[in-house]
């Protein structure tokens, strides 16, 4: 690891100000991506600004129609939250199958979606539930937030403060774990909204990162049942292919995981 300057601000405002002062600043959330690449000397930020100690970024709130998870809340805090479990149990399930205990104790929801790893779990939930990403500057809809591999709509220095998930009528998540990394080899989050719309998002499958799956959405809108997907074909075009899963295998997983997510959603 190269030398860097570590900062531990106590407010979002202070963090943003520090970011502006550094020549090549990086925010630190759970650190599961930034710290390894720094250790491998693949990243050399001048300043590392830790968002994890900012109290206003931690916590879970519920409103009449939404679950609001603040950005620096850990997966562990999400999976043991009674409020979250009551509001959207599929999110709690997702957090419980994410990584391993060490990852769940440190990793944060804001870090996950800001990084937008193509195999991360939470982008699927955010996109499928049509969540709103709140930052220190604005609100961004999920459909506008994810911009491809490791890319988001966030401006340089912009800080995610919270994610607001509208309560669905039904939601479920099913994931095939990558054998080595235990990211999602493919994970599918299915949602039936209160207005009767169906939104389905897959992670780990596409070369462009998290994606909606229109063919599955259409079939489920017509009939919310695993069997409704029997004759749906997912194209392998544009899907990831590597030693752990060919594109045709991942295409199969999109369908199978969607079916199992529907079963889980009930």
């Amino acid at each position, binding site marked *: 690891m190269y030398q860097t300057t570590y900062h531990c601000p106590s407010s979002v405002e202070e963090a943003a100000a520090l970011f502006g002062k550094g020549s090549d600043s990086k925010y630190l959330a759970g650190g599961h991506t930034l710290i390894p690449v720094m250790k491998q*000397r693949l990243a050399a930020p001048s300043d590392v600004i830790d968002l994890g100690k900012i109290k206003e970024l931690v916590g879970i709130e519920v409103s009449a129609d939404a679950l609001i998870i603040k950005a620096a809340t850990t997966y562990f805090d999400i999976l043991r939250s009674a409020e979250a479990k009551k509001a959207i149990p599929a999110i709690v399930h997702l957090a419980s199958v994410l990584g391993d205990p060490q990852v769940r104790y440190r990793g944060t929801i804001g870090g996950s979606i800001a990084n937008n790893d193509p195999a991360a779990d939470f982008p699927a939930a955010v996109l499928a539930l049509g969540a709103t990403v709140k930052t220190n500057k604005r609100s961004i809809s999920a459909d506008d937030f994810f911009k491809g591999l490791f890319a988001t709509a966030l401006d340089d220095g912009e800080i995610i403060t919270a994610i607001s998930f509208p309560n669905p009528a039904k939601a479920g998540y099913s994931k095939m774990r990558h054998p*080595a990394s235990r990211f999602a080899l493919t994970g599918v989050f299915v949602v039936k909204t209160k207005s009767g719309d169906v939104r389905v998002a897959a992670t780990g499958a596409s070369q462009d990162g998290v994606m909606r799956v229109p063919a599955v959405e259409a079939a489920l809108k017509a009939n919310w049942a695993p069997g409704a997907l029997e004759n749906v074909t997912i194209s392998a075009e544009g899907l990831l292919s590597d030693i752990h899963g060919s594109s045709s295998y991942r295409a199969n997983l999109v369908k199978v995981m969607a079916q199992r997510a529907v079963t889980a959603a009930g």
Partner: protein
Amino acid sequence: MGVEGIGASVVRKEDRRFVTGKGRYVDDIKLVGMTHAYFVRSPHAHAKVKSIDSSAAMKMPGVVGVLTGKEIVDDKIGNLICGWAITSRDGTPMKMGAWPAMAPETVRFVGQAVAVVIAETKNQAHDAAEAVVVNYEELPAAADIRAAIKPGAPQLHPEAPGNVIYDWTLGDEAATDTAFKSAANVVSLDITNNRLVPNAMEPRAAIADYNDAEEHFTLYTTSQNPHVARLVLSAFYNVAQEHKLRVVAPDVGGGFGSKIFIYPEEMVALWASKKVRRPVKWTGDRSEAFLTDAHGRDHLTKAEMAFDASNKIIGLRVKTYANLGAYMSLFSSSVPTYLYATLLSGQYNIPNIFAEVISVYTNTVPVDAYRGAGRPEASFVVERLMETAARQLKVDPAELRRKNFITAFPHQTPVIMAYDIGDFGASLDAALKAIDYSGFPARKDKAKKEGKLRGIGFSCYIEACGIAPSKAVGSLGAGVGLWESAEVRVNPVGTIEILTGSHSHGQGHETTFCQLVAERLGVPISQVQIVHGDTDKVQFGMGTYGSRSAAVGLTAILKAMEKVESKARKIAAHQLEASEDDIVIENGAFKVTGTDKSIALPMVALAAYTAHNLPDGMEPGLKEGAFYDPTNFTFPAGAYICELEVDAGTGKTGFVNFVAADDFGRLINPMIVEGQVHGGLAQGIGQALLEGAVYDASGQLVTASFMDYTMPRADDLPSFKLNHTTTLCPGNPLGVKGCGEAGAIGASAAVINAITDAIGNNKLEMPATPDRVWHAIHGNA
């Protein structure tokens, strides 16, 4: 036996320091004035080193020196050796290319060192290493066996045309061909034995300390065999003379074979320490371990088995290509030959066997012994063939095996090995009972009704351990004898130190070896200390590998114990004024049988050292040494059965049951044996389902971290059901056979046999990832 003697599941003495963080590993050692080394490594699989410019690096903070491959060659440091000479079928010796410790001209695998930076801190060395400018001219690479043997393939070494190191055979080709011509049925398989990365928990490390005034070196290193390291470093590498080199292998965090070999980093550290007149430390990181530790396995095999009309095996024909990587590591040549083809008879009576093994160079890190070393590859070939044959011949796989089992011992196979004893039917019966084989069809039907694909798979393995009778291995090309030595020191106060050449790096020797003393003298194991891993303390030893420590190392201790006991008995008889023949040893005392006269061991020891009242002519002291050279290999064997279900939607395998019935001869500590089997099974199942080292066509290691290389985790594995059957090994007085590698040798075939049974497609390569299994279910698309 007593509560701490042979057969007792005594809690491991060494675990107290390991679980409380008090182990002392190489990286824990800090010497005064110590510098740190960081290697500049090739990013290319094959390239010419055109120039190295270290001028900028030399000016960096804390840099003590930058040394290159040219300098190590100029200083006449020897090339790395391969210690087992193999002769090709045409009578020519194996064709070995030169392997300098750092590459002066040509790099042949990603990660090969070209230079080293020595600096005050590790970070400074790392910073400066990035400032070393190496100008490479890239060459085309051959990154796997198929690429290396293609006509026109890139040539790695001028000594080895076509990248072929040797083309070796074993067995009678003509007789085997004749047997195949008369066969009623022939079963044939193409088999890939996947390449594995050992991944010991502790990465390799070395500290070299040159003492200018004494012209003496000390090397602290992560070695399974420090004496062999000293021998090779002095006799072949010209870094230090044997009497001027002390090698210490302190606590070592696992080896699995990968720490048998002497690596370039150890040579460079010694050489550099003399150059800079300071101690030099190198600690590899996990990335370096992936790139530079010797890998394991990596075979491509075509195997055929011939049966007569009564389903008796009449012939086995095997042709194997083995990937040895870019250079020949210390024992690499023996692994796919004498450690592999000699086990191809398995547990079966096979009158005719012919094996051809062609070893090739590729632009990958060297391949050498890894837990099982050749025997897992052999067992996989034989047991996949047997299962395939049972399906093809439409007979029960257990019964086909039983029909062909060797039942009379000793049994001379057509491939050198003479099995001394075994009861293969007993192991199979125990495993069948443990898994309730007769209930399997009903379980399979039930699973089918629930939409699950259930399968069962067998593996009846045999291995050759107790490595090895020196004369026998010498006649086959080994450069060393494979005996073991020991010394038993009874101190004047009656405590006991056992000095052994068997290094312990996870095996539990510090407990099991004490149990032998407890058994024989009746003293508590707390009175016994095991000393190992230091060439200044232990006179000599051949180290720990090949499941040899109990059969060879512990027998050497037993031989030394017998000498100590004999002398102590004489002293006791003298002290008690009794006949030596009437002295019995019980509970730490020497007693005159049939009387209440006795003398405690500490008093015998004290008498030996005060020497005030010893028998006439007896030397003072109570200390004896022994060398033990085994007369034969030992042959652990057993039966593993795996029952599992496959999720047809995802191809994911879920274990239902995994049972083992092993015959290891006498068990010294059943709890430790159980742990060894668990670890071995984890590695065998890991090979079958999870692990696989993959290089891309350009020779870059794709699986260079745990993000892509799937190490088995606890939740990937079933809860094992272990059983033991016992035939005592007649070849050594303890009747032990060895247990360290069995799981890794036998497990893979059982798993693949079970999956292919479940999915009804026999074409499935390891690791059987969900992706591969799903494709196999859906027609290998």
